[in-house]
């Protein structure tokens, strides 16, 4: 085929032509056999021709010969494996000899023969090395990573003392010294030998070695039991894990729904419980529920707007289930959106009281009905609350209640009332009656049944209360009036008007006061005791005279007070003119009294009263307004500290040229860079202080500089000084302890494996400890069983098992 392939694209040569003809001839018998079918024959021929030609085109595939008809002559090359497998198997060839017994031996031999795979090429050297390298790296990295923990620990350690595993010397505690005491005298020796013989404790609370051993030892049974326990725990854990994993993977919607429902119920139950036990937590829980409600209200999840809901709505006419589903959904929405009524304690009490009362007078069913009525939202039910109506009806019945309530009652309600069903009206009547009875009861309790003192007092009290209420209202009104008046006063500038109104106000006030006095009298509880007795007054007078004697100069009665500073600078500027010594300088200054008074000596400290002194000072400082100057200075300091605007405007371009020409304001405005607003000053709220905001450069040179990231940390670090000047001696030693200490004359040897083991034991996590314990127990059990019945094979097995289990554990 190769040459044919080579000449694939050229025109077929003479040899090729010959082969083609041969092929055609080969197919002759088949052709001849099917000569009778004319048209089909022609087709086939054509097909063959096509195939032959396509075969010339270099297609590798060898045409599989098909036996369409039974014939005696079967070419040995025509055997095929039915198109399932390309190759012919040995078994296919053996099939026919299956039945012959003589060839049995050969058959078995043939069965052994297996198709031998060809040997693979030896690996590329580089590849091989790579794999070796990888393996070596893995191994060594494993080896090294074992040390990781030790290394990090050593790095973290505050102080390392080399050689590492040497125990520090310290004085032995006195107890140890005592135990080391030995008997010397023969008597002592005898006693101690006796004690030792019987294994008795020598020092008081110490157990005998036997006891100790017995306590320490764990019996085989116990060990077994413990092992079982541990195993069980592990199994349970794995079960639980599997279960959780399975549950987590469930995608069923209905399952999730059910689960969610359950969770909701659970949470409600918990809430109920919490409400009783821990109201605060319950409130929190309630908030959560409230949030859910809000979310539900916001969403359209359970409403009629969804795709599904719409389809259901259409189906609802014909399908009962659809209707039900729809209803369910709506119900759910309702459930979720209904408010959860929090019953506070007071309410609860009230309810309880009501219930009690009802129990006394009214049958149960009324209560039920009332509950249902009260519970529903009146806006939702389209009916008014019974209270308002109640007021009206009560009035009708009794005609005693205040007139104010009447106005509240809208007339609409009555018309609606009529529409109500008979049952409801009857129920309401019941309720109303109940309420009335209540009111009556209250009033009865208020009204005195007999002329008892308590009754009178109660009456008085009631009157007082009403009086008080009236008065309070009056006062409120008056207050309003006053406010209005004052507003007016402020508005009008004319003095006369002011005076007039003042007079009016005063009159009013007077009248008010009179009224108030009249009214207040019964309210005042305290008696008419003198607050100051005559004696007191006398003493006061004497004290005053003394004071006068002691301090001839009276202080000016003005009490300067620090006013709150203004926020905006504009206001400040305005205020600046008004600010006086009172604002800036310190507050009240009481006079100091001393038994010894200075006798005036200097000329400047002459005997003169305060006013005179003040006058002198004023004269002396007539020119300078000290405070004004200070405020000016402050303003200037603030201005100086502010960042300035930068004007980048240049002459030319769009303006007249020439000397002494000002740049236009427009241009200036356009090219000025506005400075950012200054940071708030420290003295913003202190009118009497100027605090310099400039950076102290000289000081900053001494400050450490670290990136902002580490700033706080560094500050914390610098917080405490480490010198002996500021700290106790031991603290200094601790603070300045070196990181590494080496002992002179000691050989520092490289770290050994046992150090590694030690660290492993120290830093083991609890699960691993458990595993280890389990292993140890297993080993122990093994040992026990061995001692009882030593069998080498068993031992081997056991060992294998244990290693296996270890392996498993590691995996976990």
């Amino acid at each position, binding site marked *: 085929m190769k040459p044919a392939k080579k000449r694939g694209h050229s025109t077929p040569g003479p040899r090729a032509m010959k082969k083609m003809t041969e092929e055609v001839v080969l197919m002759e018998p088949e052709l001849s056999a099917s000569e009778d079918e004319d048209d089909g024959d022609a087709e086939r021929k054509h097909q063959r021709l096509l195939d032959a030609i396509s075969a010339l085109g270099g297609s590798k595939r060898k045409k599989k010969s098909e036996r369409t008809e039974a014939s005696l002559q079967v070419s040995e090359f025509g055997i095929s494996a039915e198109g399932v497998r390309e190759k012919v198997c040995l078994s296919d060839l053996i099939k026919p000899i299956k039945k012959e017994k003589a060839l049995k031996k050969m058959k078995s031999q043939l069965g052994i023969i297996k198709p031998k795979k060809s040997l693979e090429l030896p690996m590329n050297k580089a590849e091989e090395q790579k794999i070796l390298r990888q393996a070596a790296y893995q191994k060594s990295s494993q080896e090294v990573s074992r040390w990781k923990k030790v290394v990090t620990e050593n790095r*973290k350690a*505050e102080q390392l003392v080399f050689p590492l595993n040497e125990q520090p010397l310290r004085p032995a505690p006195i*107890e140890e010294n*005592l135990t080391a005491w030995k008997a010397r005298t023969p008597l002592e020796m005898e006693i101690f030998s006796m004690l030792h013989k019987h294994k008795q404790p020598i*020092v*008081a*609370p110490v157990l005998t070695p036997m006891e100790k051993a017995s306590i320490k030892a764990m019996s085989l049974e116990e060990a077994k039991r413990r092992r079982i326990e541990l195993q069980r725990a592990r199994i349970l854990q794995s079960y639980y894990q599997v279960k959780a994993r399975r549950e987590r993977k469930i995608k069923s919607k209905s399952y999730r729904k059910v689960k969610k429902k359950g969770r909701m119920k659970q949470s409600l139950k918990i809430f109920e419980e919490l409400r009783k036990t821990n109201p605060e937590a319950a409130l929190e829980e309630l908030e959560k529920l409230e949030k859910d409600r809000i979310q539900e209200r916001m969403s359209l999840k359970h409403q009629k707007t969804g795709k599904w809901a719409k389809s259901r709505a259409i189906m609802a006419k014909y399908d009962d289930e659809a209707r039900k589903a729809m209803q369910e959904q709506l119900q759910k929405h309702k459930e979720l959106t209904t408010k959860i009524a929090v019953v506070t304690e007071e309410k609860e009490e009230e309810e309880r009281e009501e219930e009690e009362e009802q129990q006394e007078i009214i049958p149960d069913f009324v209560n039920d009905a009332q509950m249902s009525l009260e519970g529903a939202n009146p806006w939702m039910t389209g009916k008014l609350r019974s209270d308002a109506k109640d007021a009206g009806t009560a009035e009708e019945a009794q005609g005693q209640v205040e007139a104010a309530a009447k106005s509240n009652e809208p007339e609409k309600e009555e018309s609606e009332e009529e529409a109500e069903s008979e049952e409801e009206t009857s129920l309401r009547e019941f309720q109303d009656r109940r309420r009335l009875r209540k009111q009556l009861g209250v009033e009865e309790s208020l009204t005195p049944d007999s002329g008892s003192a308590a009754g009178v007092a109660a009456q008085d009290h009631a009157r007082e209360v009403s009086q008080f209420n009236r008065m309070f209202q009056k006062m409120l009104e008056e207050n309003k009036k006053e406010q209005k008046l004052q507003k007016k006063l402020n508005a009008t500038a004319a003095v006369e008007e002011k005076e007039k109104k003042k007079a009016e106000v005063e009159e009013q006030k007077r009248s008010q006061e009179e009224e108030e006095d009249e009214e207040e009298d019964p309210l005042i509880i305290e008696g008419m005791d003198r607050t100051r007795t005559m004696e007191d007054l006398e003493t006061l007078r004497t004290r005053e005279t003394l004071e006068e004697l002691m*301090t001839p*100069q009276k*202080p000016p009665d003005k009490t300067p007070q*620090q006013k709150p500073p203004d926020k905006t600078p504009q206001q400040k500027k305005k205020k600046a003119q008004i600010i006086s010594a009172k604002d*800036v*300088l*310190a*507050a009240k*200054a*009481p*006079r*100091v*009294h*001393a*038994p010894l008074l*200075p006798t005036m000596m200097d000329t400047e*400290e002459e005997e003169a009263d305060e006013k005179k002194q003040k006058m002198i*000072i004023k004269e002396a*400082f007539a020119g300078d307004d*000290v*405070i004004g100057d*200070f405020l000016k*200075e402050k303003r200037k300091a603030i201005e100086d500290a502010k960042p300035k605007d930068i004007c980048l405007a240049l002459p030319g371009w769009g303006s007249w040229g020439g000397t002494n020409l000002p740049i236009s304001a427009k241009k200036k405005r356009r090219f000025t860079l506005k400075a950012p607003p200054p940071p708030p000053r420290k003295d913003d709220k*202190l009118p*009497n*202080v*100027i*605090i*310099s905001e*400039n950076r*102290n450069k*000289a*000081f900053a040179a*001494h*400050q450490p500089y*670290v990136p902002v*990231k580490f*700033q*706080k*940390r*560094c*500050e*914390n670090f610098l*917080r*405490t*000084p480490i010198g002996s*000047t500021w*700290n*106790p001696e*031991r*603290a200094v030693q*601790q*603070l300045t302890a070196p990181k590494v200490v080496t002992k002179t004359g000691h050989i520092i040897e490289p770290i050994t494996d046992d150090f590694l083991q030690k660290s492993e034991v120290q830093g083991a996590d609890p699960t691993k400890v458990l595993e280890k314990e389990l292993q140890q127990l297993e080993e122990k059990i093994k040992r026990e069983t061995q001692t009882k019945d030593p069998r080498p094979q068993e031992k081997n097995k056991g060992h294998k098992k244990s290693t296996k289990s270890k392996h498993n554990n590691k995996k976990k």
Partner: protein
Amino acid sequence: MDKTGKFVRKPRMNAKRRNKWDPQKKFISGKRDPFPGDSSLHKNRIEKYERARKSQLNRKPFVKSKSSLHQSEVKRQTVITQAAKHDLLLPEESGFLKGDEGEDTCTITQQDIAEVVDITSASKHFNLVLKQFGPYRTNYSRNGRYLLLGGQRGHIAAIDWYTKKLHCEINVMETINDVRWLHSHTMFAVAQKKWLYIYDNLGVELHCIKQFNDVLRMEFLPYHFLLATCSSTGFLQYLDVSVGKEISATCVRAGRLNVMCQNPHNAIIHLGHSNGTVSLWSPTVKEPLVKMICHNGAVRALSVDRSGMYMATSGTDKKMTIYDLRTYKPLSSCYLPLGAGTLCHSQTGLLAAGVGNIVQVYKDAHVTAPRSPYMCLSVTPPIHGLQFCPYEDVLGVGHGGGFTSMIVPGAGEANFDGLESNPYETKKQQREWEVKALLEKIQPELITLDPTQLVEIDTATVEQKRNESLEQMGIDPTKKTPFVPRNKTKGGNSTGNVLKRKKIVAEVEKREEIKKSIAGREEKSVEEKVTEGHRSALDRFKK
């Protein structure tokens, strides 16, 4: 524990130790530790030793540094608690004078007290009658043992007032404005009519410093070894006495400066001016750190208490006002009959005021405006110098008639630190202390309003700092000088050629820059690759 109880348990140092000395461990003898754990301390006590408050970390520390940070924090806490525990060792307690029922303490005279108290205490009240050269300025040395008297008419005397031993007595034959001990009792400065002089304790003139002229008042800052002076010419000057150099001279521009005091907490100098303002100064800042208006007339006297929280001022308006120096707001104010001419705070916070010829001592003046003084004493006017003696219940009064040592119970700190300022120190100790103090000398630049500021990190931006250095030096060190092509002949200097050469240099520079940036980028990418190594499956959702 802090939230609920008042007591804070000291944190453990390290776990190993704890395991060894387990308090719950039963000893072999059956003995049990009756007070297991570390001794508890009152929170206030610990707070006293916290120099600056711990600031909250703004971000989580790296995992690597977490443990070390924690360790250091624990260490610091233990140090503080250790220091607080040492408070137990302080032997003395302070107290105040209490009158009988109905008796005002200010009516109790010095004679009454002297009669009652023990002989040594009684000997603390004495009078030095020096009528000839009066009125006297006084100054106690830092340990309270030595007294310096300077009469206005030239009389100087240095006394060990415990033993009443006179060290020296001279007359400088000119006006003396102020006297002040320097860091030890072996040297003192005297502000005389024209110059500032320094004498040793035997009265030998050591220096005459002509840079400091017309000095009116002086203050010595012991930790900085600075002598601050203010003069009638309106200058505030600082002299470093350890090296004898003038640190700074600032023109205050507020006329004659005759009112001055120091804040012992932060070594800031307070100056009182004739326009009723008080200004606060640091030697390296050329403007007042704070300026506040305190009186409606000239300021006559100033004093700041030891904690640096309260400042007392008195002015010609006869008021005495206490200001809170943390908020700069007045706390209390009172009228004194003639106004205080001198003011002085004691170590325990008592305030002495010289009013005319009366010395009045006030207690708790910063809490409420005082109604009546705690103690009173009448002396020969005028009162010129007033100072409480450190570590003693004594107030030294320099007046026209000489000097009076007045007993004021509860004025002095009850416990002195023997290594810091020891009244009973020997010569050797004194020398030792001097060396140590010099080694621990604080630089004058570190004088700021808030002494804990040194712990804080400078937050100024790089740009700000560059601007500052530019301002200071006048040139920008980071700026490159522009390339100027070399002069060439034979047409090499033609405009085109010059441009070409310039361009070449510019290109070279540009290329280098690009190379650098590429290298940087590569490094970054390598780093990123390294970090990508431990990406977990969930990291792909990050971003």
